[in-house]
């Protein structure tokens, strides 16, 4: 099971529903990846960064993760799910 975590941008003016995007990714990967909010000192396979627009530059370097995936628009969700699935299969 892939260990995944998520960071949200803060949501000042999101162009899509970030919570719904997270739920879509999480439910699509059920049984393959386990999502939790980031805990200090914990290593993750994947950090999913959900930005409501393209304006936020943060990569959340303080979160220790092998892979970082960034969503800035809803259309990217299927591709992100596909890419995380590839990592699942590689592991």
């Amino acid at each position, binding site marked *: 099971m892939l260990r995944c975590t*998520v960071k*949200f*941008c*803060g949501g000042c003016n999101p162009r899509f529903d*970030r919570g719904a995007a997270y739920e879509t990714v999480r439910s699509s990967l059920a049984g393959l990846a386990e999502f939790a909010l980031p805990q200090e000192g914990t290593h993750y396979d994947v950090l999913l960064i959900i930005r409501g627009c393209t304006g936020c530059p*943060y990569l959340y370097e303080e979160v220790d993760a092998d892979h970082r995936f960034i969503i800035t628009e809803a259309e990217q969700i299927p591709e992100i799910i596909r890419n995380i699935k590839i990592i699942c299969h590689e592991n």
Partner: protein
Amino acid sequence: MMTKDQYIESLRKLHLNLWMFGEKIENPVDDPIIRPSLNSFAATYELAEDPQYQDLMTATSHISGKKVNRFTHMHQSTDDLIKKVKMQRLLGQKTAACFQRCVGMDAMNAVFSSTFEIDETCGTKYHENFVKFLSRVQDEDLAVDGAMTDVKGDRSLAPSKQADPDMFLHVVERTADGVYVTGAKAHQTGFVNSHEVLVMPTIAMREGDEDYAIAFAVPTDSDGITLIYGRQSCDTRKTEEHNDIDVGNKMYGGHEVLVIFDRVFVPNDRIFLNGEVQFAGMIVERFAGYHRQSYGGCKVGVGDVLIGATALAGDMAGSAKASHVKDKLIEMTHLNETLYCCGIACSSQGTKTKAGNYLIDLLLANVCKQNVTRFPYEIARLAQDLAGGAMVTLPSEADLRNPETRDYILKYFQGVNGVPTEDRMRVLRLIENMTMGTAAVGYLPESMHGAGSPQAQRIMIARQSNLEMKKDLAKKIARID
């Protein structure tokens, strides 16, 4: 950090001397007139609990290293200043009202840097006093009201020249343990929902005004403090039996009170300025600058809701595809985003103070607020244009609930087929609320006068415009020696 529920419970423990509509209010927390403003303030706690918003709503304290609510944070970078504006836009979007907590954040950042520089010059210990106060605010996640505006009496006279000395808050007695102060602070946003008040002088001062150059913090329910609640347009709709639709925004609102200080005692360790007249102006300028930045966030968030409501009104009336409707919505968005640009710009150009926290670019912050005194009025005008006359001629909700009139209202206020008439009424009432009702207080006159009236910004713009440099530029191009 406090949860939303813990915050609300903490307010029940305050013993405010609060008056409204001729009566003493013993339980402001559950009062139907006041509660919407409390809900807005509580949103600053609620969103900080939600992982979706924590990146904006929280920060790391430079004092303790712990996570704190951003409203209690001293900005440590231009990134913090930008996140502040984004947080305010977010809260404006969620409440469509004034959420009130900015004024304390702006006051604390201004007093933090000013006290450091006062101590450096005068050998006082105000910064140490302030950091002690700030640490408690951060650790306990307290709500702080920032109180600047004196009632001012005769505007042509200095504080010490007024016929009534209480027109500006001032020290009336000094003891070994502290000072007693008397006076009043007007237009105090969020005071009723705050645990502490941070008081600052209202204008730059000169020799002779020493008793008026006073900054301090005390609990909001201190002995000698009396609050008189300000009326808002349509406020008593909140007490009507059928008030679900007619209030426009059932959940959220804002408030202002007149705060009277009658010989309120301030202990020495809560004093942050006491007679150093030359520094009153610094506190005023920095607080005003931060607060003028704030309006480039909060009013934009409220504007987002108004633009959304206006677009919905068009959808429901079947006018959404008309070219002028589309164009007016574009204009509203353009104006709203221009305000946001100003808020972000003055933040991105911020600089580090001697105390270590960051101050916005004051010229750009004043330009930001100057635009805020105008654009929300134009956005509101366009909203009223597109909403149509029904916004102000709709029958009451009581008539909608009355079987004698209900069917007529449902039939004759119907817009696009399939859209419930009640939904259309809700959207029109929301636009009314934001442009003429209780929320208009926050969106319109507060945009005009909050953080200083338009002329105050023009004075600051003139002071910082560096006209001589611009003349030199022109001379050089024109080849004038």
